[in-house]
């Protein structure tokens, strides 16, 4: 396996983008990434998309997007792993370049969620249809089950969950592409409408349209590029687990996140303390805490203390979700994992604008599907 570099990044604004179609969102992000990479060459492409079928009635997404990007006949494949579709697309593009099969590959993610589909029902397909969804559980409901179990086991409080959303909204104010670039308070989170007790509306990531894309390339190609400081993919890892939350040994512990991150730390030859900037899959506030614990950033049960102490804010010891995270930036489900790679790359290039983390050299992106049954972890290294 050879080294792989991030040559270009691009994303649409995230939000309720009624004027843009599903295919246009993809093309807009892909063109931005191609422009950022300053390359015309593309050998193949992967498109992460959780549910074009349920959200807009469209499958066969690979060929559609290659056609509308004007890149047919290159190979184009749609990748699905629920909300980890984007991370999985990045991983496949990484493997294709690392293997030597291709020199330049586009990895992207796209989701069009506001065209009128039953979003709650579509998202619920990421859980076990026969033994979870059959009984009326929703995605916020499943994370609420995790949240209450975490409260019982570790004494995590309602206010601590709210602080995750408050921090991510603060970061979102500095991201021009964020769906919700405004601050919120703990009081506002606690007063927002109940979705699935104990989780309220402002604990939940929103329904979002958007796309993101990255161009991955071999060392030979990357070293000729002059446009940006080099960013190398130091690790790409993925793990699978029980689809049904009730089948996990510990409902509060994301074992796939632990497994994928352990593999990634080994591959990158680092320990978690070496990571300067992190994007995690905060689909709900409780998820950010559980992910921090599974990434071994702290002991199980202690993540909320780090959030409370401001350690995960920009300027803190371990900034998390500098983009605003899924909560404030928005969560177009298939695109989120790719947007994380774009954010980490921007940070490691020193091109993150107002939200730049000083001297960021190593970044980690963690993306997961369902209640964590699929997880990808990528570690990136800036060579500036």
């Amino acid at each position, binding site marked *: 396996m050879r080294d792989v570099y991030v040559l270009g990044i691009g994303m649409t604004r995230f939000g309720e983008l009624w004027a843009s179609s599903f295919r246009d969102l993809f093309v807009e992000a892909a063109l931005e990434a191609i422009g950022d990479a300053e390359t015309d060459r593309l050998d193949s492409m992967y498109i992460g998309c959780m549910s074009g079928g349920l959200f807009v009635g469209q499958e066969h997404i690979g060929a559609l997007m290659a056609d509308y990007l004007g890149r047919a006949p290159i190979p184009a494949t749609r990748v699905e792993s629920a909300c980890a579709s984007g991370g999985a697309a990045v991983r496949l593009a990484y493997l294709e370049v690392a293997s030597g099969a291709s020199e330049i590959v586009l990895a992207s993610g796209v989701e069009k969620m506001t065209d009128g589909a039953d979003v709650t029902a579509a998202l619920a397909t990421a859980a076990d249809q026969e033994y979870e969804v059959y009984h*009326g*559980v929703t995605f916020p409901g499943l994370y609420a089950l995790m949240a209450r179990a975490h409260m019982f086991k570790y004494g995590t409080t309602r206010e601590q969950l709210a602080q995750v959303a408050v921090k991510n909204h603060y970061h979102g104010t500095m991201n021009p592409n964020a769906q919700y670039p405004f601050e919120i308070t703990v009081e506002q989170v606690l007063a927002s409408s*109940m*979705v*699935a007790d104990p989780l309220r509306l402002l604990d939940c990531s929103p329904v979002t349209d958007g796309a993101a894309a990255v161009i991955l390339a071999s060392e030979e190609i990357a070293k000729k590029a002059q446009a940006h400081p080099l960013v190398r993919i130091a690790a790409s890892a993925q793990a699978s687990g029980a689809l049904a939350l*009730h089948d996990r040994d510990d409902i509060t512990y994301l074992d796939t996140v632990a497994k994928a991150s352990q593999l990634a730390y080994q591959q990158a030859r680092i320990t978690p303390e070496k990571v300067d900037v992190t994007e995690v899959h905060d689909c709900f506030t409780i998820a950010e805490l559980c992910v921090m614990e599974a990434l071994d950033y702290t002991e199980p049960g202690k993540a909320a203390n780090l959030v409370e102490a401001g350690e995960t804010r920009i300027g803190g010891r371990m900034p998390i979700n500098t983009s605003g995270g899924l909560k404030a930036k928005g969560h177009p489900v298939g695109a989120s994992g790719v947007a994380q790679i774009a954010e980490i790359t921007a940070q490691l290039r020193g091109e993150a604008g107002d939200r730049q983390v000083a001297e960021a050299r190593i970044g980690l992106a963690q993306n997961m599907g369902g209640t964590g049954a699929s997880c990808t972890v990528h570690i990136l290294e800036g060579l500036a």
Partner: protein
Amino acid sequence: MKSPQYTREIPQRYRLEAQKCKQCGKIHFPPRLICDACQSRDFEDVHLAGKGRVLTWTVIHVAPAKFDLEAPYVIAIVEMEEGVRLTCQVVDCNPEELALNAPVEMVFRRIQEDGQADIIQYGHKAVLQRE
């Protein structure tokens, strides 16, 4: 839901039929073709007795369309006496009565129905075992 799927799931929906791995003893609900713990394919049939305890719960306020008229309702993860866990509704109670490890018993109930001509779908919900 279509009838082949509904018919196929009747043993679990109506009778909580599970399987026990003959090699390692792990009980699976629903049954699987291969044991995820030891890879054995040798099982014996067991019925869950229907008694368990609440490990965690939520109250769903924003429900999927099919359950809209029922909201708010309680969903819990229940650990059965046999050690397996399942997700189900907890009914006939006020959410304030729920507690960690609260004992429950499974009861046969209507779960959902979609549309005028569709199958009425049954299964099990939990009720609190009161002293």
